């Protein structure tokens, strides 16, 4: 338990009769960037709210830094910074005032507000009313708010939502920097795998409240096995020949045959076999199922 920043044990959560989170056992190691993936409505935001004790969880199911959350609410929240859904910003205050407000609430030095504005690139807009901010600027201000207390654990709910490509890259780099240089643990939720893939060290995939996959990003890659796709003229007889020669066929369409990829040499032999038997092989290539499809598969089969 000591090595996890977040650990949930068989966490269940309902809104009335509606099951939102079912038997969820998250394990977020310290110092990791944990990508929390799932389609919209999978229960990601609910889970994050539970981790912040905004939604009451049953006792002994949620542990932050090894401590049960309901009985250690203030102590755990001190070590956590969060951005949940849309950033919570007072529209009638400027960006800087919003951060100073947070400093006063938490008893932090006010100079920290300027540092944070610089960090998220809002120094120029510091004295502009927050209600006049663009979505991306609000998102940055939200991240600044989450970081201002210098928490050990960051919970970011779709932090790149509404950011332009530049902003997305900046946030991504910021996350990597925070995790590697400042040894922070980050849980970042998203419905886009491509976004998580580049930063996360660990991944959890959730759908309809259930955790479908949890592990390191390498383990996720291992799940996607490379395939060999062959396009050939007389499909029926080709399949007969390939099967007779002892190969396993995964799928076939009226144009393509898909086999597990074994090695480059093996692919060459298969090609020779087909050509020698009078088939015209129009293409033969190695196909790696990308993570995006894998993600879709994982969430679809459920």
């Amino acid at each position, binding site marked *: 338990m000591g090595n996890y920043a977040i650990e949930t044990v068989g966490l269940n959560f309902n*809104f009335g009769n509606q099951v939102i989170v079912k038997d969820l056992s998250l394990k977020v190691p310290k110092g990791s960037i944990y990508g929390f993936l799932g389609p919209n409505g999978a229960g990601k935001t609910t889970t994050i*709210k539970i981790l*912040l*004790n*905004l*939604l*009451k969880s049953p006792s002994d199911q949620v542990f932050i830094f090894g401590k049960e959350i309901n009985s250690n609410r*203030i*102590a755990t*929240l*001190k070590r*956590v910074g*969060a951005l*949940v*859904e*849309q950033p*919570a*910003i*007072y*529209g009638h205050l400027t960006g800087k005032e919003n951060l100073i407000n947070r400093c006063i*609430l*938490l008893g932090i030095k006010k100079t920290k507000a300027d540092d944070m504005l610089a960090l998220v690139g809002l120094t120029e807009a510091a004295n502009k009313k927050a209600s006049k901010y663009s979505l991306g600027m609000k998102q940055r201000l939200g991240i600044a*708010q989450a970081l201002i*207390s210098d928490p050990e654990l960051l919970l970011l709910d779709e932090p790149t939502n509404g950011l332009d490509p530049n902003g997305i890259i900046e946030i991504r780099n910021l996350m990597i920097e925070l995790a590697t240089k400042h040894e922070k643990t980050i849980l970042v939720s998203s419905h886009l795998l491509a976004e998580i893939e580049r930063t996360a060290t660990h991944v959890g995939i959730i759908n309809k409240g259930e955790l479908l996959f949890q592990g390191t990003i390498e383990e996720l890659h291992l799940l996607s096995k490379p395939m060999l796709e062959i396009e050939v003229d007389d499909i029926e007889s080709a399949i007969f020949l390939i099967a007779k020669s002892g190969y396993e066929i995964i799928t076939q369409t009226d144009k393509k045959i898909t086999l597990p990829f074994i090695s480059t040499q093996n692919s060459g032999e298969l090609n020779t076999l087909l050509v020698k038997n009078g088939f015209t092989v129009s293409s033969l290539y190695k196909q790696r199922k990308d993570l995006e499809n894998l993600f879709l598969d994982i969430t679809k089969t459920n």
Partner: protein
Amino acid sequence: MAFWAAILLPVIICGLITFGFYSNSAEIIAAHNPPIMLWARYSGAALGIMGLLIMPFYVIFMAFSVNNIEHKNDTWKMLFAQPLNKFAIYAAKYLFAVFLIFLCLFLFASLTFAFGHLLQLLVPKFNFDQYNPLHILINAYAKLFLSSLGILSIQFILSLLWGDFLKPMGIGFVGTIMGIIAANVGWKYAYLIPYSLPALVLRTSKVKKGGNPLDLPIFTQEIWTSLIYAAILFIIGYFIVTKKSIK
């Protein structure tokens, strides 16, 4: 916004009454009121409207706006995700609302006093300077303040629960009308309706003004009712806050 309302409301109302007295000064002087009655007429103009209508509505509006700032900006979740005691957040909000009511009424009392003397300067024939009304003014406004705490607690909870304007406003509106009617028909148990307390409190102080104006007990039955309501509802509100799940 509630803060500015707390300042503007007394300034505008006292200003209007003063202006009214100033422009009608000839008639009023002709009535030859003794100084104490002149002060009573003058401050009664502000107190009358206050107690009946504006006070309940101002309290409703303020309880609403103190909570609405969090509803509107969707910042409850942020507040409750901070390492702060939930009671501290709740109590701070409540006390700020109490402070605003106090500020508003304090301004009313001091402006009534100041503008009265200003009138004296402008129209030397008035006899405002021959009586010191501070005691009565402080007494009346202190009672108004205490009697409004019951309404504040109810409205505070309503505004805490609902993010929209209509529900707390509607309930408050109906409550205020009921309170005024109950207070005016002199229903025996009218003091049990928090909304009628400001009106009741002012009436008792007016009735007794004819007798001995300096002998006004502050802690009457109405005030106690208001304070008990405020205390009980404040505690209930705290339990609502701790149980509240933020969606």
